[in-house]
């Protein structure tokens, strides 16, 4: 890893009175529009999250991510503590540093390793609690977060889909179907936007931290619950509706242990359809960044052929009575 990066990190830490040599630095996988590293100073491990310059149309800036994460931390939700945020003069431009939370984020391991068997039993309930806390953050100071009602979100998603000029009859059907639904009107809240395994750090006891806040927005809180139930995020364990590990009743019980909002399962289903469609559009974004972008990526090329997975899920939910 470059000395320059270490130097920029040290500079940022020093501004927060953290002094010491960076002895180890390891790159992590960190979402489409971020570079993530973990590094060690004295006995402590930290995580740097830095804009990659490859911005997604749906993602917010890293320093705004840090601000929100801090607000959520203050609500008592499980998130990493922010240590430092870059400013104009920092060489890292758009980045922040947080404390490392130990645990596992790889979905396949959380779902299948024996050491997480206890955690899996409580995870749906704890996810419900965490979501309710995230949804209780005061919106007053969150001026930079995009705000949308369900129909605006649909419209934005449609505009993104349309720009790729790839005709997808199932997408057209689903856009129309969703536009005709009456979404329950709920006071808008902070929405994580990508709450699912892969973005949750899990330890042997349960949920340790919610990470990857780049798709955060202000909108209908049920969006997060529907997203968690999307079949793509069950990683093959289809019968467990919540993330491949839990059932909806447990998640909702955890939710109502914190929040007064009563959540109707039919509403969750609409947002699940919305979630499959949204994941389908994100697949398109990634595919076309490979097709039109400067760098070759077999991973991004392959994701273009995962669009049909989202289509079969939409069909299954809308007119085959699937879950």
């Amino acid at each position, binding site marked *: 890893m470059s000395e320059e990066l270490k130097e920029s990190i040290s500079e940022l830490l020093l501004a927060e009175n953290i002094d010491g040599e960076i002895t180890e630095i390891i790159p992590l996988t960190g979402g489409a529009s971020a570079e993530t590293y973990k590094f060690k100073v004295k006995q402590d491990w930290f995580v740097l999250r830095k804009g990659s310059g490859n911005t997604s149309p749906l993602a917010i800036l890293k320093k705004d991510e840090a601000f929100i994460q801090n607000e959520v931390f203050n609500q008592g939700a499980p998130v990493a503590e922010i240590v430092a945020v870059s400013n104009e003069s920092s060489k890292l431009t758009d980045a922040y540093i947080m404390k490392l939370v130990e645990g596992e984020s790889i979905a396949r391991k959380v779902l299948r390793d024996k050491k997480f068997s206890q955690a899996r039993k409580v995870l749906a309930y704890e996810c419900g609690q965490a979501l309710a806390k995230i949804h209780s953050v005061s919106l007053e100071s969150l001026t930079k977060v995009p705000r949308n009602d369900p129909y605006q979100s649909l419209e934005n998603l449609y505009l993104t889909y349309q720009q790729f000029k790839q*005709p997808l009859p199932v997408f057209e059907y689903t856009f129309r179907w969703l536009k005709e639904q009456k979404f329950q009107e709920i006071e808008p809240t902070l929405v994580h936007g990508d709450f699912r395994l892969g973005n949750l750090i899990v330890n042997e006891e349960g949920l340790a931290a919610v990470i990857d806040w780049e798709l955060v927005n202000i909108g209908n809180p049920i969006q997060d619950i529907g997203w968690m139930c999307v079949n793509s995020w069950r990683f*093959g364990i289809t019968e467990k509706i919540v993330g491949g590990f839990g059932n909806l009743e447990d998640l909702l019980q955890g939710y109502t242990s914190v929040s007064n909002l009563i959540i109707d399962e039919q509403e969750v289903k609409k947002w699940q359809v919305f979630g499959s469609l949204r994941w389908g559009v994100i697949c398109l974004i990634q595919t076309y960044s490979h097709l039109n972008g400067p760098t070759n990526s077999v991973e991004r090329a392959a994701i273009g*052929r*995962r669009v049909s997975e989202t289509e079969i899920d939409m069909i*299954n939910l809308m007119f085959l009575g699937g879950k």
Partner: protein
Amino acid sequence: MIFDRPTAYELLDAVSIFLEGKIKNELPKHLGFNLQIAINVINIVKREIKSGKEIDETSSKLISDLLEDEDTMKSLADSIKNKTLDLEDKNLQSALLEITKMKLSVDNPKYSTYKELIE
């Protein structure tokens, strides 16, 4: 066909067996992950070579049954968008289901929802 054997399908088959059998376990983890994606991609292309043409024809037929003088995915998408077709139309629903199932049979026949629906 003027080309000699191996066929396009057989060539890809040889490559995927080589990658899976000889290369995959030699690589560090993160490259192994990408190699698996590359193998999956080759398998998609193999399935498309085998059944793509037939799927295309069947899909065009399904669409022209709905739209009379049109048979492309674009015309089907447009007819849904401009509300020429009704969302409750059972023929539309079954055409979408059949076309999507055929796409999955090439893209990812192991996908859970697809497997449930063909059983």
